[in-house]
C-alpha cells in the first residue's frame, strides 16, 4: 500500500511537471514577442526602449530554463501573468470564469453518471435483447453527434419553437440544461457502453453464477451484487470525463454564451492572448490530474480489498 502511494505520488508529480512544461512551451513557441504583445494596445505601439525594459521586467532576457523556473514560481504564488488582450491579471479572469465552467461540468457529469450508468446497467442485464439493442443504437447515435450541431438544433427546438428553455447565459438550473445535455451526450453514451460491458464482464465471473444460483431477487442480484463490482472501472472513466468535460466546454460555452474559461480560450486563440491560453491548458490539466487522483482514492475507499489489505494489484 505504502509503495503504491509513493509510486502514485511520484507519477503525479512527474505528470504535473510535464504539463507545466508543456504549457510553458506553448508560450515559448507562440509567435510574436511577449514583451511587445503585453505592451501594445490598439492605437499605441510601444517604443523599442519600452519593449526592452519590459523584456527585462518579464525575465525574458534570462535563459529558458530560468524562465521556466520563474514561471512555475509565479504560478505557485497564483500569478499567471497579465492577459495580452485585456491587460488584466489572468488569475482574476480565471477566478471569475472558472465557476461557470465548473458548474457546467458538474451538471454534465451528473447527467453522464446518472443516465450513463442506468442505461449501461439496463443494457447489460438485458444483453442482446431488444432493449439492449435499442440502447446500443441510441448510444451509438449520441456518440456520433457533433456537439455544436446538436446545440444549435436544441436552441432551434427548445428555445425558439417551443420556448421552454432559455438560450444563453448563466441564470441557474434552467439555463444549464441544454448546455449540460449537449456537453454530456458523448461522455454519457461512452459511460453507458463501458458500464454495459463491465456488467457483462462481471456476469462471466464465478460470484455472479453463485449469487444467481442462490435464487435471490433480480434487484439483489444486479444492484447489490453486480453493480458495486461493475461500477469500479466506470468510476475511473467518470473521473477522466470530468477532466475532459472541464477542458472540452469551449464549443458549448461559445454557443450558449456562457462566460466560462472555455469560451474565452477560443477568444484568446484569436486574440493571441497566450498567457491566458497557457493558464487554461495548465489548469484544465491540473483539474484532470486532481479529479482522477480523487477517484483513485475513492476506489480505494470503496474497495475493501485494497483498503484493508493494501492489495492493489489483486
Amino acid at each position, binding site marked *: 500500500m505504502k509503495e503504491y502511494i509513493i509510486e502514485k505520488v511520484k*507519477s503525479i508529480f*512527474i*505528470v504535473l511537471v*510535464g*504539463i507545466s512544461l*508543456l504549457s510553458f512551451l*506553448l508560450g515559448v*513557441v*507562440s*509567435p510574436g514577442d511577449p514583451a511587445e504583445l503585453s505592451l501594445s494596445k490598439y492605437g499605441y505601439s510601444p517604443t523599442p526602449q519600452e519593449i526592452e525594459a519590459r523584456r527585462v521586467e518579464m525575465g525574458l532576457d534570462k535563459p529558458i530554463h530560468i524562465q521556466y523556473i520563474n514561471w512555475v514560481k509565479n504560478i505557485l504564488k497564483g500569478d499567471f501573468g497579465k492577459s495580452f488582450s485585456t491587460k488584466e491579471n489572468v488569475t482574476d479572469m480565471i477566478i471569475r470564469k472558472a465557476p461557470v465552467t465548473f458548474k457546467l461540468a458538474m451538471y454534465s457529469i451528473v447527467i453522464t453518471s446518472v443516465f450513463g450508468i442506468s442505461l449501461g446497467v439496463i443494457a447489460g442485464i438485458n444483453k442482446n435483447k431488444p432493449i439492449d*439493442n435499442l440502447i446500443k443504437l441510441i448510444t*451509438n*447515435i449520441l*456518440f*456520433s*453527434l*457533433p*456537439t*455544436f*450541431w446538436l446545440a*444549435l*438544433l436544441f436552441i*432551434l427546438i427548445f428555445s*425558439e419553437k417551443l420556448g421552454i428553455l432559455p438560450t444563453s447565459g448563466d441564470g441557474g438550473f434552467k439555463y444549464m440544461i441544454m448546455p449540460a445535455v449537449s456537453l454530456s451526450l*458523448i461522455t454519457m453514451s*461512452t459511460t453507458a*457502453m*463501458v458500464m454495459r*460491458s*463491465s456488467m457483462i*464482464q462481471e456476469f462471466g465471473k464465478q460470484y455472479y453464477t453463485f449469487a444467481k444460483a442462490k435464487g435471490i431477487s433480480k434487484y439483489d442480484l444486479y444492484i447489490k451484487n453486480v453493480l458495486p463490482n461493475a461500477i469500479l*472501472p466506470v468510476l475511473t*472513466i467518470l473521473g477522466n470525463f470530468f*477532466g*475532459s468535460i*472541464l*477542458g*472540452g466546454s*469551449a*464549443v458549448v460555452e*461559445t454557443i450558449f454564451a456562457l462566460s466560462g474559461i*472555455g469560451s474565452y*480560450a*477560443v477568444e*484568446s*486563440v*484569436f486574440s*493571441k492572448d*497566450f498567457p491566458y*491560453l*497557457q493558464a*487554461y*491548458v495548465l489548469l*484544465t*490539466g491540473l483539474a*484532470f*490530474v486532481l479529479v*482522477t487522483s480523487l477517484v483513485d482514492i475513492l476506489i480505494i475507499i470503496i474497495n475493501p480489498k485494497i483498503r484493508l489489505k493494501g492489495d492493489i494489484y489483486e
Partner: protein
Amino acid sequence: MNKILGKLSIIVLIIILLVSIFANIISPYDPNFQDKENRLSGFTQEHKLGTDPLGRDMLSRVIYGGRSSILIGVLATLVSMTIGSGMGIISGYFGGRLDKFITSITNIFQALPQMAFTIAIAGVLGPGIKNLILALVISSWAGFSRIVRAEVLKVKEEPYIEAMVYLGSSDLSIILFHIIPNIMPNIIILLTTRIGRSLLSIAALSFLGLGVQPPNPDWSVMINDARLYYRSYPYLIVVPGFSIFITILSINTLGDYLRDIFDIRSEEII
C-alpha cells in the same frame, strides 16, 4: 443486427469516400459558383438540396464538404497511430527504464484534456491544414501508446514469444512478425474509433474557426455559416450536420462490427 449494420456502414463509408474523391465529377455545380438568381432556393429540380444564401448549390457543397475533414482526420489519426503504436510497442516490449520513461510521457499527454490542448496548439500554431493535423497528432498519440502498450504486454506473456526470446530471435523480428500481427486487430479497431473521434474534433475546431478555412466548403463551416439563416432555412444546418453525423456514425458502427469480428471487448478500446 450488428452484422447488417456493420456491412451497411462499410457500404455507406465507401460511398462517402467515393463521393469525396470524385467530387469534381459527381457534383452538379462548382461548389463555389454563386447562382445569384437562386439564393436560398429550397429543394428544387435544379438544386436538389437547395442553395445557400449566396446561391451556391448545397448538394455540391455537401459533396465537397467532407473532403478536407476526412482527409485531415484520416491523416492525423494515421500519424498518431504510427507514433503512438511505435511508442507503445517499444515501451511494452522492452520494458524497464525505457518503458517507465515512455509511460511517464504518455501520462503527461493524457492528463491534458484533449479539446483544450488541441485548441491551444491550433491557436499557437495558427490555422491551416498542416497545423491542424499537427495539433491533432500532438494531442492524441498518447491514447494509442497506452493501449498498444497494454496489448503488447499481454502478447509478450504468450509462451511462444517467451520461447522465441529464449531461442535468440532478434527483437526486431519478434516485433515485426509476432507482436504486431497479434495486436493488429486492436490497432485497426482503435484506428477506426479514433478516426471517428478526430472527425468530431475537427468539426468542432472548424466550427470555432480554428479548422478548415474558407472558402473550402466544409460541413462544419457550412453549419457555422448558416447560423444567420438556419431559422428560416433549417436545411442549411440539417444537411451538412447530417452528413457529419452519418459519416461518424458509420465509422463508429464499423468499429463495433470489427470488434465483433475480432472478438475484442469494447472497454479495452475506449
